[in-house]
């Protein structure tokens, strides 16, 4: 094992440029999109690998502290490629193309026999591990992106708007699930406290279907609003949804419902003692 590390280190130290050239050619031959580019990255990786080997890093454990720097560099690379939307396969094949130049170099330097095979095997598994690591980081950063987008979508889909003094409205768009209802409930209740609004309108025009679960969520929200001392109107119930609800036997337990947001607002204004009149000289 020691000889493999030594041979690899000597190879990188003495023939670094040649190895880099071979790596670049290998990438071009395999038709990788990163082919001719990423020269700096390759130099950095090679330097990092050399530094790690000189620091006594074991080839069979890439979690060892001596690998920290190289791993960090791979992290950054992988993350930036993930952010650029490069496919996962490209990311690993970039590193796997490094194998051939290394094998060839080792073959030249070591006499054939058990020692050579062992060295090649050690290097091969090392590169595999690094590639695996890179892929794991790639996956993780993609998942981070997805999670962030989900969060943003959640926040985007639940704005609480002020319709009138003391009247708040939440236009709900998309399917209601537990997580979203929870978020809507929390934001709405918070805004009720902040603004001291005594009436909230939940508009479900944008909700495609209402089943028993969704109704349950709505009822919960309305109950929480009532507990806080405010009132709630549900508006935007489309005819099909009204039919479904009745067929499913959903009882909205005395919750005020209106067909449209306009009706709900009119009711809210009336309740607060406002009246809307049309002036006679309007066209």
């Amino acid at each position, binding site marked *: 094992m020691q000889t493999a590390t030594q041979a690899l280190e000597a190879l990188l130290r003495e023939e670094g440029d040649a190895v880099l050239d071979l790596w670049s050619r290998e990438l071009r031959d395999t038709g990788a999109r990163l082919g001719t580019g990423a020269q700096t990255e390759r130099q950095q990786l090679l330097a990092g690998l050399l530094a790690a080997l000189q620091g006594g890093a074991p080839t069979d454990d890439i979690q060892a502290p001596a690998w920290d720097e190289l791993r960090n560099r791979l992290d950054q690379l992988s993350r930036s490629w993930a952010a650029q939307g490069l496919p996962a396969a490209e990311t690993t094949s970039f590193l796997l193309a490094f194998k051939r130049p290394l094998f060839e170099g080792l073959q030249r330097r070591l006499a054939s026999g058990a020692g050579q095979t062992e060295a090649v095997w050690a290097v091969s598994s090392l590169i595999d591990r690094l590639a695996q690591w890179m892929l794991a980081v790639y996956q993780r950063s993609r998942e981070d992106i997805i999670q962030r987008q989900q969060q943003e979508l959640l926040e985007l889909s639940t704005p609480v708007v002020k319709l009138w003094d003391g009247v708040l409205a939440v236009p709900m768009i998309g399917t209601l699930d537990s997580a979203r209802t929870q978020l809507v409930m929390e934001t709405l*209740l918070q805004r009720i*406290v902040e603004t001291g609004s005594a009436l909230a309108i939940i508009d479900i025009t944008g909700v495609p279907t209402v089943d028993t679960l969704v109704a349950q969520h709505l009822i*919960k929200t309305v109950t*929480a609003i*009532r*507990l*806080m*001392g405010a009132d709630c109107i549900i508006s935007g119930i489309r005819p099909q949804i009204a039919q479904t609800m009745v067929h499913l036997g959903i009882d909205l337990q*005395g919750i005020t419902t209106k067909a449209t947001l306009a009706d709900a607002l009119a009711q809210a204004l009336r309740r607060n003692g406002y009246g809307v009149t049309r002036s006679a000289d309007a066209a």
Partner: protein
Amino acid sequence: MERIPILQMGRTLLVTIQVDMQDRTAMALQDDLSTRIEQTGATGVLIDISALEMVDSFIGRMLASISGIAQVLDATTVVVGMRPAVAITLVELGLSLPGVRTALDVEKGMALLAQAARGAVRAR
């Protein structure tokens, strides 16, 4: 054991809960309050729970039963200032407190009681 003070303002009893309620405190409050309603002939009870950060099912049920007791003694109860987290917890516990009147803050609660005294508020 701490007791929660009950203040009288005209024909209204004012209770502000500013500590985290223990079960025994809650029981004592229920006792005290029913006695005070009887003594003072109050027509309204206002319970301010804006400082209450945590509730359990016992406290939730206690609020409901205070309201029920006051009802029997011909007084209207309004619970005011419930925090969002508390409201969500109660809903998740399945306690919707039917029959308990609520208001956003003390001012609106007092207005509700005044209305109730005029007999303008129908039970929800």
